[in-house]
């Protein structure tokens, strides 16, 4: 049965080599490889075993058959220049001069996914209230069997981290930070590598290390931004803690207003309906865009006294436009400085 299928595929290949109208998207990527390329218009051969794709004669480290004549391939490393893309029997033939390798570190924005680091203190420690001493740690581990790029604009021009993260490499990435702001730092990860690129971000009060291991902060992928975000069951207890709301946007060209609606946790009429809050760029500089648009309301109870005494609340943040946002609330205990995050899920 398999042999028959393979034979059929070869037969189809012979036909499709004459007729195929193959498109390759994107048409350029890094010399380091690791980019995700879609080939469409191939001969549909859903049951053909083991498709392979070569870029300039070098095999792709991973090919996925999406069916209906569409393959997705990870680019292998190759010296800069334009190469042929070849698809093996059953799917099509060779498309000449179909893909161009460019120098490492070149930002082709369509090839990268932006990753928001909501808070990064870099390698510094910062004193806070009640004798607290705050630090954060970012780790990155490339779990892919191929090397992948992570670009960071390094706006402070203080270090020169390698953009390439080797397969299986673990890296402490505290260099993803800026003296301009601890909030809303952006890194860029190749789409072909982002699924297997693992992160960890923790913030902790090192003066209380024996009491607590810290708080995990999310590392937010571009796909997690939406035109509205709901935060449920947010504690508002000004007698014991302060609750902050932090909102981010990755790609609006200018500053823009958002709408914040706060109700009791179970809903009902709005206690707050505020459209005066504006997201602004957190910083400027860097070899690639390094900052999100951002706003922090550091004390919700102080800004909106009408929400005090109603118990936990629900916070909705929306844009009313195509712009997408991501938001979270952070509840910091006044006495212990312990942080509880409330995240969108």
């Amino acid at each position, binding site marked *: 049965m398999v042999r028959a299928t393979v034979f059929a595929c070869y037969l189809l290949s012979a036909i499709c080599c004459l007729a195929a109208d193959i498109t390759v998207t994107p048409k350029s990527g890094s010399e380091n490889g690791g980019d995700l390329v879609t080939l469409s218009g191939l001969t549909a051969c859903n049951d053909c075993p083991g498709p392979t794709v070569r870029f300039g004669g070098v095999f792709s480290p991973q090919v996925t058959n999406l069916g209906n004549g569409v393959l997705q391939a990870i680019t292998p490393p190759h010296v800069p220049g334009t190469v042929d893309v070849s698809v093996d029997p059953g799917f099509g033939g060779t498309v000449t001069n179909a893909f161009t390798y460019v120098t490492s570190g070149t930002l082709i924005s369509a090839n990268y996914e932006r990753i928001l680091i909501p808070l990064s203190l870099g390698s510094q420690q910062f004193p806070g209230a009640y004798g607290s001493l705050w630090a954060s740690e970012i*780790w990155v581990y490339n779990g892919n069997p191929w090397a992948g790029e992570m670009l960071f604009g390094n706006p402070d021009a203080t270090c020169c981290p390698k953009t390439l993260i080797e397969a*299986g490499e673990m890296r402490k990435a505290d260099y993803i930070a800026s003296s301009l702001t601890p909030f809303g730092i952006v890194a860029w990860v190749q789409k072909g590598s982002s699924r297997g690129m*693992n*992160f960890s971000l923790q913030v902790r009060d090192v003066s209380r290390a024996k009491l*607590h291991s810290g708080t995990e902060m999310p590392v937010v992928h571009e796909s997690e931004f939406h035109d509205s975000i*709901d935060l*449920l*069951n947010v*504690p508002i207890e000004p007698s014991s803690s302060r609750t902050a709301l932090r909102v981010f946007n990755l790609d609006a060209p200018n500053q823009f207003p958002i709408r914040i609606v706060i109700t009791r946790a179970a809903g009902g009429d709005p206690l707050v309906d505020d459209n005066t809050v504006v997201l602004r760029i957190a910083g400027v500089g860097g070899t690639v865009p390094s900052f999100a648009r951002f706003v922090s309301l550091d004390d919700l109870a102080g800004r909106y006294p009408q929400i005090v005494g109603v118990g936990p609340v629900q916070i909705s943040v929306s844009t009313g436009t195509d712009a997408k946002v991501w938001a979270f609330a952070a509840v910091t205990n006044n006495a212990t400085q312990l942080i509880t995050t409330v995240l*969108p899920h």
Partner: protein
Amino acid sequence: MMRPTLVLLALLAITTSAWAANDLTVSPRLGTVLGNDTVTIHLNTPLVCPTCTLPTTAVVGFGDARGRNVTIVDRNTITVTTPSHQRGVVDVVVTSGSLTLTGTGQFSFSGWGGAIARENYEAVLIPISVAPGTPIPGANFSQWISELWVRNSASRTVEYFLGFPQCNQLVNTCTGDSPFPSILPMTSVASAGGITDGTLAYVQRGGSDTFSLSLRVRDVSRTNENAGTDIPLVREEEFRKTPIQLLNVPIDSLSRTSLRVYDTEGKADTTANVRIYAMTGGDPLASTKLTLLKRGTVSSGFTTLASYVFISDLHTTFPQLADGRYRVEVIPANFLGWAFASSTNNDTQLVTTVTPQ
């Protein structure tokens, strides 16, 4: 010689066959009577010529109701949101300009007690038990509760339920005429207790983008010190068969660090390999093979409970590990899984989670 009745039946069958139009196919071919499911229509006849501009819109009829959010993907493919419709089999008719394409009996509407299509729902893993009422005693006089909230921010009702939506004969007619369990528009609901760790909830995909969940666990004996810990609710797209990496996990004598591993398919007992590495890399410092136990049932593709294993303390399980931070790798044995670690301070009972990011 055939009897006249048989001849008539044969003629009717042939006639019916001749009338059945198969200009298109629909996937999936089943949706809820509530509507709001997204289906893809493949047209056997293209809407336009290969070099022509795609039309901006088309009309898609499901029986006597019209679909919403029609998107023309390419000249052979349309996506559309189903309308609400009474239970039954309907024709699907696509109209674009002068072109009308029909799929006879291509779509079925069904409700609670009837057939249900798994692909119309997104699974969401609830990693820990939901117990918002009576606190559960823990170490050092801690008193634990956990609260699960869900919210439907859409302007339409969205179906949401735990596991397979079993029909309750006492409160439901089970004829397939009513929608499956759902959350009304613009509504927030606090879940009752009794939800076991590793329960799978299902949200109708047509409304999942505007459907939010929140789960927080806290020690109510220490509310003056801490507001609790956010626990992720894990969407289906985050389940994976590839190794799950937990970075910078604290394993030390000051705290107990637990590891929870879930097989979200929940079909059988299965295994996962766990390897623990220094943060600086190198060979594994410790490893073990875990068995995840099947605990629930699977009906029509809906799993009630993930298969599950729990290590209560990595520090005592692997005494060879010095106090420090580690990378914990969980390798599923060919199942769609998820895992996370949580570190609870022995004195303060404060919890730090480490989840795959």
